[in-house]
């Protein structure tokens, strides 16, 4: 027996690792010393484990036909636009359920494949497409030359194109490749912040078998470039100078 009294709330929180480190330690000690307490903990722990097993039973149930049909549709490059600069038709392309599902799967694939404790999700920017400054993707956009491959978690990211948009902002098209598929995106830099403008995903088909065909050829990206890239992309020399100036506009 121990002097301390532990409630079911605390025992349950122990299972979830939600007690303070001091409480976790104290309860661990008491569990070793107090058989009755350990017995209660075992009951709650077993209930939790059986609960998870019972819920996990859904894994064995066949997918509902409508969901399966949507997920079995052959993948094609799909599109999410985060902050369209103009209300364009491309934003609403591919809004069929099947497309949405595949698109979501691709987003998640990229996200889960590249997330680590220290990294922000690569292509899961906020509603306005913000790529946070601490993310490896931001770093890649800031310093990598076109064609230069950066390893970002389990993904490979590479800029494909740098150009000045119609509003003067500099933008880059880049690819991100993981085992789950590839994606091509365009992000633009405003006030030192990169914001994703449009992303196209190409899910590997079938899952696991990598396909290089390209999200980069997605109509949405072409449409964005048509609408917002008034001239030719920067050549290697212009881009190198721009990177050297840390994206400051030319003084000339």
């Amino acid at each position: 027996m121990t002097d301390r009294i532990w409630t079911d709330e605390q025992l349950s929180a122990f299972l979830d690792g939600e007690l303070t480190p001091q409480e976790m330690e104290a309860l661990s000690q008491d569990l070793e010393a107090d058989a009755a307490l350990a017995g209660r903990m075992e009951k709650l722990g077993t209930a939790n484990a059986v609960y998870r097993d019972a819920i996990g039973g859904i894994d064995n149930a066949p997918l509902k036909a409508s969901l399966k049909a949507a997920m079995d549709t052959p993948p094609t490059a799909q599109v999410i636009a985060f902050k369209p600069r103009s209300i364009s038709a491309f934003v609403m392309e591919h809004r069929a359920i099947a497309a949405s599902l595949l698109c979501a799967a691709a987003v998640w694939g990229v996200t889960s494949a590249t997330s680590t404790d220290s990294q922000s999700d690569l292509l899961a920017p906020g509603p306005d497409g913000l790529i946070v400054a601490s993310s490896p993707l931001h770093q890649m956009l800031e310093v990598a030359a076109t064609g230069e491959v950066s390893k970002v978690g389990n993904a490979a990211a590479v800029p494909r194109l740098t150009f000045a948009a119609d509003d003067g902002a500099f933008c880059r098209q880049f690819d991100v490749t993981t085992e789950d598929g590839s994606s091509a995106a365009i992000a633009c830099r405003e006030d030192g912040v990169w914001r994703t403008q449009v992303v196209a995903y190409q899910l590997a088909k079938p899952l696991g078998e990598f396909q290089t065909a390209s999200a980069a050829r997605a109509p949405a990206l072409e449409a964005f470039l048509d609408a917002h890239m008034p001239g030719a992309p920067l050549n290697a020399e212009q881009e190198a100078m721009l990177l050297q100036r840390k994206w400051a506009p030319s003084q000339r």
Partner: protein
Amino acid sequence: MALVPQLRRFAYALTRHADDADDLVQATMERVLSRPMPDDVELVKWMFRVSRNIWFDDLRSRKVRRDAAKEIAADVMLDASTEERVAAQAMLRRAQEGIDALPQEQREVLAMVAIAGMAYREAAETLSIPIGTVMSRLARARAALAAHLEAVS
């Protein structure tokens, strides 16, 4: 695609019916893509949150109330003896009954924490309730399940 099974488990924990769970998965995916996502939240957590909201705000009211969860055959203990498998199946069946008997409030918190892996703080924010309430609902849910399992073993 690994997140689809995860979402499906969560949906099943909420809906308690395979068919409804798949409808919820589909609705969630559609909604996630059609609405902006806050930039301070993980996509997977956001997905669970959206799923929960769809179920409680929308889908649930349209579903015919079902008396009990449709039994899902859990493919457990393939290496075990027939007796052990029968016992395990019986245990799972009792667990399903126990889960169905939980009040909705406890069931959703349990799904959020034990299935979706949300921290107490995240569950509290999602439900707009204090963390202490999350803690106590979880404890009551687990205690009720434990009591249910004990009663039949």
